[in-house]
């Protein structure tokens, strides 16, 4: 039975997916006509059965598309942005990847799109200049979505920046707010001896469709998409993840849906019960997003992620509606194959740092640990030179916020390891720094309770002085419950908080333990409430000794 038929009949595929789901569909308003809904809301009366009035945010989003600001950037830069109202400044500009930062008013952030985390030296050189121009205010952070975000820019920078980016084939489009975010893939795609499939062309094709004329422009909430290609492609924290899977001897992808982290709730993606051929991914992704755009909840923002829609409809009905949308998008769209959700991802992501042979004989990749993912202009320029001088001019960013120089001839790897930059970004970092991930922290974010990056760096360096660890320990630092640093994915998760110590309110962290991205994925759970930062090294030392096999250096001496 094809899924198209199922979509029509609504019958249960009987797969016994074992997922606890709401099977009785809840009434979901069709929000496709936002303008009409806005008018209803504005009138102050909601007729029986009519869509609920839009929130102020949804009204602002539906008033015009932020992409329409692109031709005005030059004018805004020259004339100043006095004419921009609060909504345009803080909401609509994010459609162009431009973020007003309340903590540093006037100094903006720009988030790029780097499909699959791939970037060329020529592209990175443009970004290095942009960061350099911002002087002491400039930096670039590698994000947990294999992306880069630049800090310290003035609005006057935007028009020339967008031109420069376009010249080298980069875009910032729809990288923020309620849009499909940067699409991630295997950071080693195409060079990975262990990969099942090269995710780069698939990720690129999905991005092209989503940013194309039929792509979504006003989602109810942000949406994360990822494509796995290797045994360690852990992607269940995405709203939509494609994991490599075999059906009747053919390699394709099983579809996982609904993963997300937030201050209220954290979920790993669940099987949709559908298997797709690689070439079907772009249009199917578009269908998922178009459906979500139309049917997602816009009334309660903290219940807007796609998992809530799946629960409201019931998994079977959700799948049927998505497949129907897929079929309606274009003639010749696939139908998918019912699938039990089994897949080939079986282990936690590798530590990408170090020198590793590529699948191309004679070549290797060199992974460098970027402490907390933060780059300055000098480091960016150095990476450009190294990628050109030793490799093919290509670099990759990993979800662990590290950088890879690829296509390095094996005989040149030793010379690369002698480069001065490696004193800052080692290829053989300690077992804690290697797997440390952090959100931006309170230097740039008003919600963060602590300076995550500098705190993490100081604490981890201290612990590596004190301890010997048998293997790396993935640790995720985040400044607030919004969980941008993904604390639930870490073997150790740390979340900024406040605590009282000696009668004073001090900066602290909550500690979470038990996160796993291996074959039995687990989210970390709260272990300890609010440990003052001054006590943190000692508390973590004990944890690492007792639970992670660490031994104390002074004890061994």
């Amino acid at each position, binding site marked *: 039975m094809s899924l198209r038929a199922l979509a029509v009949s609504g019958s249960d595929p009987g797969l016994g997916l*074992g*997922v*606890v*789901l709401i099977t009785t569909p809840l009434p979901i308003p069709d929000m496709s006509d936002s303008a009409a809904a806005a008018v209803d809301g504005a009138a102050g009366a909601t007729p029986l059965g009519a869509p609920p009035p839009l929130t*102020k945010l949804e009204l602002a989003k539906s008033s015009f598309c932020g992409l329409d600001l692109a031709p005005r950037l030059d004018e805004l830069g*020259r004339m*100043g942005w*006095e004419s921009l109202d*609060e909504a345009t400044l803080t909401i609509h500009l994010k459609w162009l990847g431009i973020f007003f930062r*309340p*903590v*540093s*008013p*006037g100094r903006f952030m720009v988030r790029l799109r780097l499909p699959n985390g791939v970037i060329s030296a020529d592209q990175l050189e443009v970004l290095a*200049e942009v960061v*350099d*121009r*911002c*002087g*002491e*205010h400039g930096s670039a952070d590698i994000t947990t979505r294999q992306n880069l975000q630049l800090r310290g820019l*003035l609005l*006057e*920078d935007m028009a020339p920046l967008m031109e420069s980016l376009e010249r080298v084939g980069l875009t910032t489009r729809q990288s923020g707010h309620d849009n499909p975010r940067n699409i991630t893939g295997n950071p080693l795609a195409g060079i990975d001896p262990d990969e099942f499939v090269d995710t780069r062309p698939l990720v690129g094709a999905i991005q092209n469709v989503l940013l194309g004329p039929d792509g979504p422009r006003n989602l109810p909430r942000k949406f994360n998409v990822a494509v796995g290609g290797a045994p360690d492609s852990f992607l*269940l924290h995405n709203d939509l993840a494609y994991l490599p*899977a075999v*059906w009747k001897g053919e390699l394709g992808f099983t579809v996982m849906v609904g993963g997300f*982290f937030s*201050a*209220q*709730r*954290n*979920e*790993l993606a*669940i*099987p949709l019960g559908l298997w797709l051929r690689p070439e079907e991914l772009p249009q199917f992704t578009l269908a998922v997003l178009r459906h979500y755009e139309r049917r997602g909840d816009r009334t*309660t923002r903290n*219940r807007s992620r796609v998992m809530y829609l799946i629960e409201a409809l019931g998994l079977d009905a959700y799948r049927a509606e998505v497949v129907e949308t897929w079929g309606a998008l274009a003639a010749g769209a696939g139908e998918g194959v019912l699938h*039990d*959700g*089994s*897949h*080939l991802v*079986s282990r936690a992501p590798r530590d990408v740092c170090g020198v590793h042979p590529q699948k191309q004989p004679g070549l290797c990749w060199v992974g460098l640990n970027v402490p907390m993912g933060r780059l300055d202009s000098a480091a960016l320029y150095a990476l450009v030179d190294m990628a050109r001088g030793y490799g093919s001019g290509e670099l990759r960013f990993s979800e662990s916020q590290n950088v890879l120089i690829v296509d390095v001839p094996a005989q040149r790897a030793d010379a690369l390891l002698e480069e001065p930059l490696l004193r800052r970004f080692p290829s053989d970092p300690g077992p804690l720094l290697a797997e440390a991930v952090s959100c931006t922290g*309170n230097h740039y974010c*008003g*919600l963060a*309770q602590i300076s995550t990056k500098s705190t993490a760096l100081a604490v981890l360096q201290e612990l590596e002085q004190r301890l010997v660890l048998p293997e790396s320990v993935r640790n995720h630092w985040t400044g*607030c*419950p919004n969980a941008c640093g993904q604390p*639930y994915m870490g073997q150790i998760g740390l979340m900024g908080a*406040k605590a*009282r110590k000696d009668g004073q*309110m001090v900066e602290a962290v909550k500690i979470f333990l038990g996160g796993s991205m291996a*074959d039995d*994925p687990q*989210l970390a*759970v*709260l272990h300890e*409430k609010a440990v003052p930062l001054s006590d943190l090294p000692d508390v973590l030392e004990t944890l690492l000794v007792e639970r992670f096999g660490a031994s104390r250096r002074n004890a061994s001496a």
Partner: protein
Amino acid sequence: MASPLGLRPAVMVSSLGPSPIPVPSSAAELPFEPDPAALPAPGHAERWPWLLALRRQRPLVLEPWLRAIEIGQIEPESDLLAVLSDQLDGDAAVRLLRFWWQHPQQNPSLPNLVGRVRDRAVADLLAAALADGGEGLEDPACQAVLWPLLGHQRRASDFPLLQRRALQPGPRQVRQSALEGLSLGLSAWPLPALRSTLISLASDLDPLLAGAAVDALARLPDARSPLILLSRSSLEASVAERLQRRLRALPASTLLLLVHGRAEGFIPPEFHSLAAELEQRRGAPVRLRALTDPSPIPPQPLGDPLSLIPLFLLPGGHVRHDVPAIATALRRQGPVRVLPFLGAWSFWQRALASEVAQGAVDSCRPRLLHHPIAGPLAVRYLAHLERVTGAACIQTPEAYVDLAALAGDQRGGLIPLSLGASRLSESLAPLLGEAAAAPLLARPVLREGLLQALEVLP
């Protein structure tokens, strides 16, 4: 669970993770009273959801919150300010800023979170406080926080204050923050004054300050010109390197040098040499084109901006008719910026005056010998040139054989108003000697001056 394909089972997770903080999804589920007295203390498990609920209150009545902060009932913690900040109006921001002046130790990030509000009352408060040092603002660190906020207000009338603070000697931290204020309001300030301020600061002894000035200068319209001029001065090494990096990122447009040329479009070698050196200095293409060239103008690569430079010395028919026609044709291919003819450039007139002065003998200045032109515009131009250079402008005789009489005139030498080798310069050479009759581009000072002027073009 076994997979029918013999593969590892799928991950079947519906709710693995904790939901550490239950948050009311709507006011209907949990009535919410935005009372400051009910705000859970920092560190309390309920504080975060409470603040999220507060954030959803729109519009929020601010008065109780301002009052609670002012009387010390609640601390102005960053998480609370982050929630309040996007609902603050000018008056509320002023009250919180005043509170911070009295208690700057309470939260160093308060001014930034509050000062994002762009409002006349906030700008007035900041300007008044910073103009006279501000009561309670003697601490340079406190002042340093506020100067950028004043710039963020982007009020043109505050430029002199920011300019003075950045330029005048004082604590480094304060000068740097005043410059940051200038950077944050960049397009709001009067351009000429801003440009000269930044040029001054770029030579400052503090490399951080100088570097930031270079960065700001690079963002101004037509930034190549001041940057190149600045690069010719003595700068601290790191600042000079920074300036070169900024210059590399400012793409120079293609220049099309339009010259008269000779028969069949032949262009004298002086122009080729000039173009080649100019191309090397600018790092961008420099094309040469003769008016006499009968072939069509090659198209410009799509989207590349082009600057058309008419290298003509007099406002004759070529300047008035041919150049506009060529510009119109070029604009069909893409954006074209047309500069005035060379003779109109004030630098060029000054350079000619200098050349004339150099050639004076016993206070007898050489005369400028030019091609025949007519019309009121030409007359006015030549009169202007005579005033600027102090040299008489003489029209070439119809018959070049009469040049001998001019050359033999004891009232002074002759300088041919011809950029490249021409019939005029060639006719004068036997009479005056090669050096004296040299076309203008063969004269090192004029050539270098022209190169420098063309180099700094956008």
